[in-house]
């Protein structure tokens, strides 16, 4: 990498005359400027909840490091590149992500990965409610979401494709809440540490892990270990949640002409 790349830094906590940190519009405008200038590395310091950071970034070589706490909608419509957060992320991280990689060295909030259809999201710690809602896949391209700790209710609701892995590190008992996979009609959810049938939502079921599943899980754990420099105990059994049907509401409707 060139020397100037190493120096590309924006202080998001910089105060204006009124003592306010950088406004999100100004911050995002500067980020876009940096990306447009052909730089491929950017460090954001002292991020204080500024929203919509790096939305719609497309450059696959772009690497954005975030120190502090980015606000909601981090990396929305992300289409390439890497965003690495050294701190916690808030709600709707990776909203409708299409490609790229988001790594969070902390927790992420509710609806993480909403409607994503590609890319990878690795969260070291816990995540909130409705994680991975309505993620989907097309022709082998689907998102991979890995959450290291605990995930709350409605994980993978409406899920139409893609892969979610919950590792449950340092969690006692099942690392997922209730209504897992409610209304899911595609994709797969892996839960290290398992879950009970009563935790499943309608249209989801438990399935046996096969060789392919083991490979997928092992590969995702590799990525997690590498990203956070943690060793994951692979002897803990992993449960798999699958959709009962790709058409969960067949038979619910009557199209008779009356």
């Amino acid at each position, binding site marked *: 990498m060139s020397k100037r790349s190493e120096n590309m830094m924006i202080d998001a906590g910089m105060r204006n005359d009124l003592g306010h940190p950088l406004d999100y*519009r100004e911050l*995002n405008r500067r980020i*876009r400027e940096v990306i447009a200038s052909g730089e491929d590395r950017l460090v954001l310091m002292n991020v204080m909840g500024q*929203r*919509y950071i790096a*939305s*719609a970034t*497309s450059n696959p070589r772009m690497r954005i490091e975030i120190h502090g706490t980015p606000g*909601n*909608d981090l990396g*929305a*419509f*992300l*289409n390439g590149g890497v965003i690495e957060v050294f701190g916690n992320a808030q*709600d*709707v991280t990776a*909203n*409708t992500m*299409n490609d790229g990689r988001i790594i969070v060295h902390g927790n992420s909030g509710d*609806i993480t990965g*909403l*409607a994503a*259809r590609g890319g990878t999201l690795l969260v070291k710690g816990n995540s909130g409610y*409705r994680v991975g*809602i*309505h993620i*989907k*896949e*097309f022709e082998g391209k689907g998102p991979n979401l890995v959450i290291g700790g605990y995930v709350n209710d409605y994980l993978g*609701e*409406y899920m*139409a*494709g893609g892969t979610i892995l919950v590792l449950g590190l340092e969690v006692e008992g099942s690392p997922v809440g209730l209504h897992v996979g409610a*209304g899911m*009609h*595609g994709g797969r959810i892996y839960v290290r540490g398992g879950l009970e049938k009563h935790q499943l939502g309608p249209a989801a079921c438990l399935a046996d892990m096969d060789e392919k599943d083991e490979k997928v899980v092992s590969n995702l754990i590799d990525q997690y270990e590498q990203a956070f420099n943690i060793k994951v105990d692979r002897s803990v059994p992993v449960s798999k949640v699958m959709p009962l049907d*790709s*058409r*969960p*509401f*067949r*038979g*619910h*409707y*009557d*199209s*008779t*002409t*009356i």
Partner: protein
Amino acid sequence: MRPNIKIPEKYRVVIDNDACISCKRCIKECSYGVLDFKDEKVKVKDGCVSCLRCVIECPTSAIEVSEKPSQFAPHAVFSPEIRRSIISQANSGGVLLSSCGANAEYMDIFNDILLDAAQVTNPSIDPLREPVETKTYLGRRPGKVVVDENGKIDLDASETPIVVMDMPIMIGHISLGSISYNAQASLFRAASELNIIAGTGEGGLHADFYPMAKNLCAEVASGRFGVTSNYLREVSCVDIKIGQGAKPGHGGHLPGEKVQKLISETRMIPLGTDALSPYPHHDIYSIEDLQQLISVLKESTEYKVPVGVKIAAVHNVGAIASGIVRAGADFLTIDGLRGGTGSAPRVIRDHAGMPIEIAVSAVDQRLEQEGLRDKVTLCASGSIRTAADMIKCIALGADVVGVCTSAMVAMGCTVCQQCHRGACSWGIATQRPELSSRIDIDIATRRIVNMFHAWNEELKEILGAMGIDSVESLVGNRDRLRYIGPNPRIAEILDVKHSGEGWG
């Protein structure tokens, strides 16, 4: 007792065997399998939906379709339709589906409103000889006029993006999936030719249609189908779909049968799965959350395109609209009770929401009271059937009207309300290639262009007759309307005087 009770047929098909030349064309044309050829004659089976494809295509006009007299004993309360629906539900146990707009006998308020015209004290204008402006601007108004050093108005000084259309008409959001490739291509091409905007619907944008993106409005619905950063940057405006007039509060459900290769590619979902749009956006539980989605779309498009919000007309529409404008929407679309759909539960289609006439006036008044009206473009849709409806809707408060069903009718649709079955004999609401090829894109485009051109000419005629030289001066000009219907309370709510009342 039979497990299923047969529902009496609704339509009678009669073949005039003297006129019939046994060409069997009708049998090929009928996509519902009603006609058959046996013993050298066309035979009629059950299941006619009165789409009239065979009637119109028969080279010798030998087919007649008529409504059968009801075979149910007359009853003032239990209408035949109610009895049919009960029988059907007892047969299937399912939620009854239907399509197109509400088919219940709710008041059509447009027909109860009369337009004013200029006489003596204000002169009328002849639109064929004097200019009458129908250009319409979509987007957030700057709220101020900037004059440059030469004393000229600086149009580029506005901080917000504005889309210019040649008519106050937008072709509403109809997704690829609910209609065929050829039908959507025709709508988009017509919008380009007319320099108006067409909605893409929530199914994303097919690669072939990107060249027309400058006349398209991208829809971001709860399913986010096909929504990519590239797509958002290509189109001229972006619309967040919260609701649809035909099914307020309901999500989308494209059955797996329709999710074939073309749809699967465009929506970016696996072949043959149901395409489900969640009922709510799960990132929006409040106006503040809506503000976030508006903002993230503006950030993602670098503030270069207007971002709007579309809601169904529901009882508290005024307050909701106010919140949406405060959340930063550049334009706001209200879709009324009678708005169309490719598939909706009949119970919602016919029983939930508010007619667009009332909704548009209520929203216009509310925004006016709160000093917000001049900030946004207000679009109104939900059964704008003719130029007369359009003109009345604009005078009630809309800047732009959204039109869908009439554009379908221009392509051949007969409003038979079978869209949800995916077997549209006119090639519109179907994904079966042998049916969708019935739409010739060039001809269908021409027909849609013709219709809207005629509407715009009619708009000019009316504006001229009212003595108004620009459609912008008609927006919310309720003083030029009079109510002549049965319920004066409606006139009060519409803020329209009763017929016979003068200027005061």
